């Protein structure tokens, strides 16, 4: 076995690809404005009715059939109140809820009403009411009004939400090892048509989640040698043999945001939430990852927790009823989570419209009762200290009529 090429090459893909931007030591002491904001974008359209099941809604069980969850079901969901519960895999989130650090919001949506992932995500990131309505992201424009502190994206390429006038650091995550099951689902019909490749693909899929074991080498090459918490986080994130990726990324995010002179704004994204088929299995896994992600951040940043708001948000919700393949299709009103010590949680926020047939948007979706921008604006105003004018004109242009949603935070 060759020494150089083999070992070095094996030590790579992940950390080698990472452009590991060392966090600059700014030398400024933490000022009064020391709050932290982490936006966690769940791309694909999280099914709110599965993550935050409204078991008390009289129409829920009928619409959801085998996907329905309840506190007294065979798979016991965590009861939040008389109407809502949390998915059984969200155990840590349920504990956060119990101590008032988790605030689920229901029936929230963008002003955009189409059902395209691309367009909806563009809106969610550009902060306007229309796809491609701005070339920069609202989180960057918000950062532009915060003086002297950078933002951080834990992504390989700069996401739209953080593109803009302010310089943003990126910390590249290690490469994904397990294959997103949604990607496999999408590829399956394509490979079925290629007679040379169909059999190999079918066998490759049969191994499903064993992807982690394919890669045995520790992938952390570039992070070695730094003494900061970031390096520790980088090691954790890149080890990743048994651990899924999102929790590892959130741990890194926690390490960064907890630094006294670290970024005040962070961004993490995750994929694989588009559950048209086999949703119970896929979301079970994904929600467990999300739960671990909250825990990982909490463990990494215990001292920053009280000053932190994590916003876990998705581009749209899904249909109220399940489809014929054990999944749900693109919808409108969604669920989201605020987590952190600065959050006034322990209750479910947003106005629940109910799932009665005459309430559904276009006879299929949960209607939107809260504009997502009112949530973002509230957090930026009350938590990050942005002024009203900046919010209405720069960060969310043309949103003067959207008032910040009050009462989301402890003050």
């Amino acid at each position, binding site marked *: 076995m060759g020494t150089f*090429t083999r070992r070095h090459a094996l030590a790579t893909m992940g950390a080698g690809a990472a452009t590991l931007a060392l966090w600059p030591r700014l030398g400024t002491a933490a000022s009064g404005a020391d709050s932290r904001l982490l936006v966690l974008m769940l*791309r694909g359209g999280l099914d709110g009715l599965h993550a935050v099941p409204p078991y008390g809604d009289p129409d829920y069980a009928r619409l959801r059939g085998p996907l329905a969850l309840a506190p007294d079901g065979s798979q016991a969901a965590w009861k939040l109140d008389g109407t809502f519960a949390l998915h059984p895999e969200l155990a840590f989130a349920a504990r956060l809820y119990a101590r008032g650090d988790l605030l689920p919001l229901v029936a929230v949506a963008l002003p955009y009403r189409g059902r395209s992932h691309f367009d909806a995500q563009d809106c969610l990131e550009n902060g306007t009411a229309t796809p491609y309505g701005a070339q920069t992201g609202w989180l960057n424009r918000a950062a532009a009004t915060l003086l002297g502190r950078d933002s951080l994206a834990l992504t390989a*390429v700069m996401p739209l939400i953080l593109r803009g006038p302010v310089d943003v650091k990126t910390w590249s995550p290690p*490469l994904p090892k397990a294959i*997103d099951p949604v990607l496999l689902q999408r590829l399956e019909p*394509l490979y079925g048509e290629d007679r040379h490749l169909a059999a190999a693909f079918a066998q490759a899929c049969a191994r499903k989640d064993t992807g982690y074991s394919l890669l045995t080498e520790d992938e952390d090459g570039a992070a070695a040698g730094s003494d900061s918490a970031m390096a520790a986080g980088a090691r954790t994130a890149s080890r990743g043999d048994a651990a899924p990726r999102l929790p590892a990324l959130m741990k890194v995010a926690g390490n960064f945001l907890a630094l006294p002179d670290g970024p005040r704004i962070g961004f993490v994204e995750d994929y694989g939430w588009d559950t048209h088929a086999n949703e119970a299995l896929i979301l079970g896994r994904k929600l467990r990852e999300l739960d671990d992600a909250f825990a990982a951040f909490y463990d990494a940043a215990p001292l920053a927790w009280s000053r932190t708001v994590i916003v876990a948000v998705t581009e749209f919700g899904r249909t109220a009823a399940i489809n014929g393949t054990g999944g749900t299709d693109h919808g409108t009103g969604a669920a989201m989570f605020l987590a952190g010590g600065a959050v006034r949680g322990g209750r479910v926020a947003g106005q629940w419209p109910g799932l009665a047939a005459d309430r559904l948007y276009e006879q299929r979706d949960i209607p939107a009762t809260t504009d997502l921008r009112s949530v973002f604006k509230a957090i930026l105003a009350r938590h990050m200290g942005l002024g009203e004018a900046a919010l209405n004109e720069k960060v969310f242009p043309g949103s003067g009529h959207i008032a910040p949603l009050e009462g989301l935070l402890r003050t």
Partner: protein
Amino acid sequence: MADDPSPEAMSAVNRFGLGARPGERVPGDPVDWLASQLRSGPDGGAAFLGLSSSIDYMKREGEIARLARRRRGRSSSDNTDAGAASSGNPADLYRRSFGADLQREYLARWTVAANSATPFAERLVRFWSNHFSVSTDKFSARVYALPMEREAIRPHINGRYVDLLLAVEMHPAMLRYLDQVQSIGPNSRMAQRMPVRAEGAAARTRGLNENLAREILELHTLGADAGYSQNDVTELARALTGWSMPRLVADALDGGDVPARTFLYREAAHEPGARKILGRRYADDGQAQAEAILRDLAMHPATARHLATRMARHFVADTPPPALVQRIARAYLDSDGNLAPMYRTLIQAPQAWEPQARKFRTPQDFVIAAIRGASVAIGETPRPWEGALMRLGQPSLQPRSPAGFSDLADEWITPDAIYKRMQIAQALGERSPRQGPDAMARAYAVLGPRLDAQTRQALARAESQGQAIAILIASPAFQWRA
């Protein structure tokens, strides 16, 4: 992309080239586009500027060898320097001395692959590089492997094959990889001078080595089934004795003069006498004896057939049409062993453009095409890309044998490989820039009219741009050079 590109244009870009780059104009006349690259040759751009040459590496090897020897001398007399033993470890020393160079070499190669605007010429470079495989597994050849591609292959892909052949066989990478530097004629002056203690291992290591001679006949010229005998191999090995490179410590440093060339003919190691190969007699003409043999081998009809088969297999189909192979071989022989007429015959042949002409992308093809298709930046280190190839089973310049990597689909289509391609597709999806063409536009640019309805639908339904790029790269259509 104003108009829909033709299937032929996409073949030129994908099958003859290294893969489409969205935003780059698709050639209007595919044959003309390929032919123009034969005229211009491969354009490495600025990527290779500042890299060391083999002679630089050789000089530095000499310095390292001298340093190591001095250290050994010191530690044997004075055992207090605990670090001496470990730091004198050749592998460590080598890595410290050449690690950064190797990184730069690989990075340059990846940069060229990702950005080349002469991708057909670049594919030819890689085709010949694989034809003349050396492996970096061979420690002593490692640092010369990439320079060999630059120095011996790139300048010669368009000329006479014999010039390419000679440049390669005289390059330190090949001389070392196939042990030619150690080969000594049993009746040479050098052998005569050797102590008579030669028994066992010593006898075997200081004598004739047939490795290079065998691979020249089997891989580089005639081909395995061309009917040459073991005696031909041995005779060629004898003729090749003396083909060597300077011994670093002895020749470069103790002797005073720094050698000006990496090739050194050692008359003293040369086996005296005439040689007989394939029935033909070659007088003992020193270094020129083997050269004369190689010149004849290059023009042998079996060599023409062998090269034509490999070429047609690489560009047209795993089992290429025999008539096409014959025509390419004919073009070679009719042009006094020139390569350009072979390429021209290939690209002008109707069989090369038929719909069923397609090749499964090898891992290297796949990763390069994916980088180009997804507009992913190579970055500052080759490690992620070499890592990807390692996983996919085709690490650069590290084949398992001198035969190089297989050019057959069956070798590469395995469940494990498909799985890993999906992993890599996913990773590239994350790294594809969000600005610029969206995934659907990329798919059109990359697959052209071969973008089928199902793939298009899957792309439209992707949950994010990143996933759409992953679908495109992991799609079966992308696995083929069609």
